[in-house]
């Protein structure tokens, strides 16, 4: 069927995830579920990650993706979802943060 929707096959993380699942790759899906203050990506934004650390999409402007990808490996292995929080106000818990001063919560779950 013709793609009516203007979805971008090459960049849309959920379309990419569907192809990766077809290829038999084990995946995790990260989703921004809450933001406070100035956050680079809106609630609902996705990052899809495989066991090799390949990823597509974004949950921030590149500030926390590295940490999310590292957590994703554990989530794929254990099969248990987890909720991560990032922000400059939370320096004790997280070394990485958002330079823009916002805070975000990212839900990471197995996909497939």
């Amino acid at each position, binding site marked *: 069927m013709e793609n009516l929707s*203007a979805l971008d096959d090459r960049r849309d993380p959920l*379309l990419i995830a569907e192809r990766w699942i077809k290829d038999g790759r084990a995946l995790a899906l990260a989703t921004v579920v809450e933001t406070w203050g100035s956050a680079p990506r*809106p609630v609902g934004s996705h990052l899809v990650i495989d066991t090799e650390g390949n990823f597509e999409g974004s949950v921030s402007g590149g500030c926390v993706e590295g940490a999310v990808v590292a957590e994703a490996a554990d989530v794929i292995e254990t099969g248990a979802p987890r909720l991560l929080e990032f922000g400059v106000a939370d320096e004790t818990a997280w070394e990485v943060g958002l330079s823009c001063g916002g805070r975000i919560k990212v839900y990471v779950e197995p996909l497939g």
Partner: protein
Amino acid sequence: MRAEALRALNAERRARRAAILVTDLADGSDRLVREGDVLSGQFGEALQRAFRSGKSGTVEAEGGSFFLNVHLPPPRIVAIGAVHISQALAPMARIAGFDIEIIDPRTAFATPERFPETRLAAEWPEDVFKRRPLDAYTALAALTHDPKIDDFPLKAALETGCFYVGALGSRKTHAKRLARLAEAGVTDEASGRIHAPIGLDIGAASPAEIAVAVLAQIVAALRSRGLAAVTESRAA
């Protein structure tokens, strides 16, 4: 998210239908809710609000935390008329993030040379809509000045509930148009939704300036619709 849920969600998105993926944040279990599904109770109301506002977020209900990820189809513009204004509107609309399609049965106008890298149909709107129907997430701009081409898509856009309907032409031209639409069975209330003369009043003179005015009016319609819904959900 289950692979099945992902496939079902992507199928809805490809077909330009609104859907919400509900995830229980405690255990990651999910379910897909389609627009038009019967929704009841407090949770149902939260889902309905989310469909209206397009805002994703967490809802506390039934003793748990649920994340609602709202997927509304990306906004699209259908321009009737492969005219000078459309030549300027097509690249501007793409830059602003809209998918745009130009429809004009006059093959001398609807040529790929005049509209590079643009979805273009050198056909009657009636025929194109059979394959790619209008929907609530589509803006329709009728730009040909020719009732034979413009009237049908205007009527169809009003019936479908397109979020924006605009028509090129002076007040005098529009008065005649309203009379024709009334004769075709369109109510005054429905035809009152047509923006005519088309475009925000910025004194636009050239075709490119008119395209700016039209695009700005489409953005205003899209965002005010969203803002109204958000205000409503805050008040509730």
